[in-house]
């Protein structure tokens, strides 16, 4: 299935002239018998956020590692800002940064020492490396924790320090591998704010995520990957449109009226309505969210009162079901081994 509309995205005329930020053709990476990445094609325009959406084991991390020169592809080619990842790794490394799924910091050292260390390795010189460390820990709200060992940091602080570590020298392309997985909502919002600020400053961000919600919030374009290949690509709008209008969850005030509600709703929505484990709850997948209003009117006309109602976006599972006819789970997590 392809969702790519051939219309170029408006507002980025420069992208037509300069090479795309990322251009991968037929990337392959195998681990033993497993083809973790299996002929992956990806073109990411310069500027903005590009989301790579997929379940565990889909090949997201492996792809990112190849693009960031940490892993050598077994097949295919990839160019970053025009530089080949295999032939010119140093040119790529000087333009990109990767913030991995697991903090790539020295846990025995303090946050500040980590920043100074990277500054020195990047050639800032002692004085500038120290100054840069102060700027970064301040900007990321880590001033108080700067002189504590990283192993004492919370998950959210660690993630912020890790992103800061990728910005010691501002990269043109930043890879973020599941930047919010395992974070509490507050920390997640902080990371989202950071990503938006990065994009405003002109950095191209490629982020992987398991959450459609996150891709929808941040990304200008999304590639859905499954079993090492891109199975759909497009704007969040295009992607969701292909899946349907999302899902309706509803609780009736009186559980005895639930079956009546199922009957009325399935007629009004023109779709199957399921009962849930909660004795008062029903749910439905929607083709067309517009018809929900009609359904609610019908319920109230029948004298059934509704205690709770929510309209959800299609979940990643639903996107996957729609795109692949199999749920978003794979038997082996090849990514973890990488």
């Amino acid at each position, binding site marked *: 299935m392809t969702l790519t509309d051939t219309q170029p995205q408006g507002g980025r005329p420069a992208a037509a002239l300069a090479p795309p930020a990322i251009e991968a053709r037929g990337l392959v990476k195998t681990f033993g018998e497993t083809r973790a990445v299996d002929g992956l094609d990806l073109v990411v325009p310069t500027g903005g956020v590009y989301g790579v959406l997929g379940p565990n084991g889909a090949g997201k991390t492996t792809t990112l590692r190849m693009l960031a020169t940490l892993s050598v592809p077994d097949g295919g080619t990839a160019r970053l800002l025009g530089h080949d990842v295999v032939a010119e790794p140093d040119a790529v490394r000087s333009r990109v940064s990767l913030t991995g799924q697991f903090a*790539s910091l020295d846990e025995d050292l303090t946050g500040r020492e980590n920043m100074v*260390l990277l500054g020195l390795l*990047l*050639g800032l010189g002692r004085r500038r490396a120290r100054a840069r460390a102060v*700027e970064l820990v301040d900007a990321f709200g*880590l001033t108080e924790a700067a002189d504590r060992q990283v192993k004492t940091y919370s998950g959210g602080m660690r993630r*912020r320090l890790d992103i800061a570590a990728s910005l010691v020298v501002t990269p043109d392309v930043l890879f973020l591998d599941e930047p919010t997985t395992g974070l509490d909502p507050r920390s997640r919002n902080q990371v989202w704010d950071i990503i938006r600020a990065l994009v405003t400053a002109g950095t191209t961000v490629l982020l992987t995520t398991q959450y459609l919600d996150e891709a929808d919030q941040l990304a200008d374009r999304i590639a859905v990957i499954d079993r090492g290949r891109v199975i759909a690509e497009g704007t969040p709008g295009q992607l969701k449109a292909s899946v349907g209008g999302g899902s309706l969850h509803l609780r009736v005030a009186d559980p005895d009226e639930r079956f009546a509600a199922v009957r009325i709703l399935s007629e009004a929505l023109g779709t199957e309505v399921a009962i849930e484990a909660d004795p008062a709850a029903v749910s439905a997948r929607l083709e067309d969210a517009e018809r929900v209003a009609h359904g609610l009117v019908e319920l109230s006309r029948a004298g059934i009162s509704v205690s709770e109602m929510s309209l959800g976006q299609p979940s990643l599972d639903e996107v996957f079901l729609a795109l692949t006819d199999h749920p978003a789970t794979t038997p082996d997590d090849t990514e973890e081994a990488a």
Partner: protein
Amino acid sequence: MTATTTPPSPTATAPAEAPVAAASVLAVLASGDRPARPGPLSSSLTHGWRALLKIKHVPEQLFDVTMFPVMMLLLFTYLFGGALGGSTQEYVQTFVPGILVSTVVMITMYTGVGLNNDMQKGVSDRFRSLPSWRPAAIVGALLGDAVRYTIASVVILGLGVAIGFRPEGGVPGLVAGVAVLLVFAFSLSWVWTLLGLVLETEKAVMGTSMMILFPLTFASNIYVDPETMPSWLQGVVEVNPISRVVDAVRSLMAGSFEASQLGWVTVAAVAFVAVFAPLTMRRYRLQD
């Protein structure tokens, strides 16, 4: 969590997590100039600095270079020294340089363990993604290890002298002996860096290195005079590189200079680096 106008008050009992201000993140991104890539020496020294910082933050890791050798030296000298060397005093004269070599050679294996740990934790991903001289991470770690070896040497020689070790070479002999040992240890470490990259876990690295090092240090001239051994074992001791290093260190500390012994150590050191450093770097580059 938008741009806050009030800076966090330093007087308040502020939590460690201050809010992230989008504006301040934007501000730190302003600088666009790319610094020149630092040279191999500078990068290696920076990684060496990292190793020293780790010693500062985790001083327990010096346990194996201080307490362990002290224990070994005292145990062997007083428990077996009389039986093995005629008298404790006599035994100490040959045993101190020997246990020095044994200790330093044994702790070279932590180089591989440390590198393996970096790979597991993901911090080496960070280093490998930088546009800098790649061997620096390993060379720097080895420089940091040289500091640990020096500490161990000072501890052993200090205690050795305190319990009666009287080298004829004096301080220059001791310094020369330690220097030769450091060169050998540095080159031997490349064997463990390769192991650290090839093997999956820290435990496997440790176990494998022990399996090589334990027989190698015992089947040598460190603890016992080889003439008391069966002839086949004397043959083993003879070709064991550790014995040759011990010979060189003993000679230097005794104040004599034997070109053939030093030449042998040099050849061994060059050979270890020439074979194992490229293998290590190849593996480091191709690591997934």
